């Protein structure tokens, strides 16, 4: 089953390449109607291309759905959504230039960037030009006053972590916990916050200083030491999608029998492909694409994404919340917000929208008062799920603090 799907996806990818090349030659055809230009700024090349690449693709697919429905109605007018993706190469210099580029093209609303250093650099531009952005980075200074232009588009690791740990304590009897992360700014920060959260819950943190270098192929050496501390649970903090499968596999091969988790979204199929049955039971925070909880609309989005990009990536189910709430808020704030983001920001506090991705529906709103002192976070549901044969099975759905 998986096999055939992948074969198709490989062929499809080749077709897309050809088609895209053709489209380039003809140029993008645009109707002479109002367009709403929205940006996606993130790392789309190099080792971390997955982060920004999926973000951009998600946004484009969602925009395609809006446009197929005739566009987005804001006030009296209907707008086609045009997504401009800018690659910052994961470089702070590039993030700043990219943000300036989007601003100069008249873009007022931007998704991304994807790391702390790039988001902080883009912030200088966002704040100065009154541009709204939704970084997928967890640095608190982005969302706390005096900063006001950034909205966290997903659940921060320090918010997911304790929720998962608490559940583990109650349901799996976890007492000793260990943290492993890549030796890089973002993951280390998430590890430190996760570790602090675990300690606050009364867990015994047996190891939280072990890191591996970016690009490590063999995780036996580092995990040997971590497993040597006999944890009940191992957290892979801020783990890059490319490392999660090999890490799980190595831990199991070394005889680790406890549970494992990460706070960030991961694609279960990719994990299963690398780690096989060893990945069963791996816990991750995800989007709402799990069969048990997803709505028909989510299914439609998955189909659309798969059609556009060849293969579904579960992380897209997380990234899709950003554009969704952004457009819904724009609709509620009215056409003035298209020019003036102060109107948009004013609308944040009272905004209540629909969550179209969950079967049970529910509200979408802006939270974050607890963590940032102002409503600068999307109330993405904390869907905690476990991998089972390449699919996610939801464990529970948590809620963000207000």
């Amino acid at each position, binding site marked *: 089953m998986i096999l055939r799907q992948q074969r198709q996806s490989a062929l499809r990818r080749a077709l897309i390449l050809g088609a895209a090349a053709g489209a380039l030659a003809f140029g993008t055809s645009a109707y002479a109607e109002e367009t709403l230009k929205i940006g996606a700024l993130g790392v789309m090349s190099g080792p971390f291309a997955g982060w920004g690449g999926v973000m951009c693709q998600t946004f484009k697919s969602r925009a395609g759905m809006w446009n197929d429905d005739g566009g987005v109605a804001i006030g009296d007018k209907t707008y086609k959504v045009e997504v401009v993706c800018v690659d910052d190469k994961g470089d702070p210099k590039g993030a700043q230039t990219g943000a300036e580029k989007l601003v100069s093209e008249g873009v007022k609303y931007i998704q991304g960037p994807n790391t702390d250093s790039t988001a902080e650099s883009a912030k200088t531009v966002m704040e100065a030009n009154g541009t709204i952005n939704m970084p997928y980075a967890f640095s608190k200074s982005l969302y706390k006053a005096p900063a006001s232009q950034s909205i966290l588009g997903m659940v921060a690791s320090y918010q997911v972590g304790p929720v998962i740990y608490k559940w583990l304590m109650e349901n799996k009897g976890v007492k000793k916990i260990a943290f492993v992360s890549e030796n890089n700014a973002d993951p280390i920060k998430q590890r430190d916050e996760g570790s602090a959260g675990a300690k606050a819950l009364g867990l015994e943190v047996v190891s939280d200083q*072990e890191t591996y270098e970016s690009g490590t192929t063999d995780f036996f*050496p580092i995990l040997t030491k971590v497993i040597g501390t006999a944890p009940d649970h191992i957290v892979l903090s801020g783990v890059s999608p490319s490392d999660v499968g090999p890490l799980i596999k190595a831990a199991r091969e070394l005889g680790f029998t406890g549970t494992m988790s990460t706070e960030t979204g991961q694609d279960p199929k990719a994990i299963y492909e690398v780690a096989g049955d060893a990945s069963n039971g791996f816990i991750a925070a995800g989007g709402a694409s799990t069969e048990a909880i997803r709505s028909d609309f989510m299914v439609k989005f998955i189909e659309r994404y798969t059609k556009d990009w060849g293969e579904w990536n579960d992380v897209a189910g997380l990234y899709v919340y950003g554009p969704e709430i952004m457009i819904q808020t724009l609709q509620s704030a009215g056409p003035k917000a298209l020019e003036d983001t102060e109107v948009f920001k004013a609308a944040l506090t009272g905004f209540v929208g629909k969550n179209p991705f969950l079967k049970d529906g529910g509200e979408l709103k802006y939270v974050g008062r607890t963590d940032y002192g102002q409503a600068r976070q999307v109330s993405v549901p904390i869907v905690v799920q476990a991998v089972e044969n390449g699919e996610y099975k939801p464990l529970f759905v948590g809620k963000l603090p207000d």
Partner: protein
Amino acid sequence: MTQVMLNALVVGTTYALIALGITIIFSIMKVVNFAHGQLYMIGGFVVYYFNVVFGLPFWFGLVMSFLIVGLLGVAMELFLFRPVMLRVKREEVTMLLAMGTAVFLESLALLVFGEKQRGVPPIATGIVELFGARLPTGRIVVIVVAAMLIAALMAFIGYTKTGRALRAMAQDREATALQGVNLKWLSAMGFGLGTGLAGLSGGLLVAIFAVHTGAGTAISIKAFLMIMIGGAGVLSGAILGGFVLGFLESVGYALLPGSLTFLIIFLIVICFLIVRPNGIMGKPWG
């Protein structure tokens, strides 16, 4: 500790295999192939496509990874490096060319292969317990194959006519040309052999690790570290360098906090090179 030593052995063997390809190219062409890691990555994807997508046996994919990436290397030598090397004033330009190739291959791979990490079904299942340490059977198969490949390569370089010609070329191009050896063909072949080894190691290791399009640069940097430690351009040095780095990494992770391990490895390498600029086995080179 048995586990640590076993880890070191596995890591060292895989590193040695990775380092061999880059050192061959360096010794015969004096080119530091910055695209080595990207070629390794492509090798992994070749095996993935043959094995998982097309459903062919792993070993067939492995042979193909050597052939395809090797041919890619021959093409690189013929159409990129040779014309440039004929006209440059400074040899360093080849380094730049290799870097450009690396970025090109990586971004192309991202378009063609996508952003996800890939793995193949295990080539062997089960785990062997050895003095309290655990060694998955898959790893045993891989390191045995890797060791055989290294031995085969050493035999090829040491005892065949082509191998000897390659060695001679590494020592003195002009003298080799005077012996009636066709240098053009030989250097393209040597380059292809080096890149083929990169592909082969990527293809073999995908069986126990995984591969994704962004893996290249980190692999390249580690490969440089290995050949610097062992001595650039010397085959035995590359193997030794691979094992030394493998041991440093495994033992370092076991004894030090993870975040300091590579900082200390880098400092050791810096100090070591200051004392022994040509590595453990290296010959002086300008």
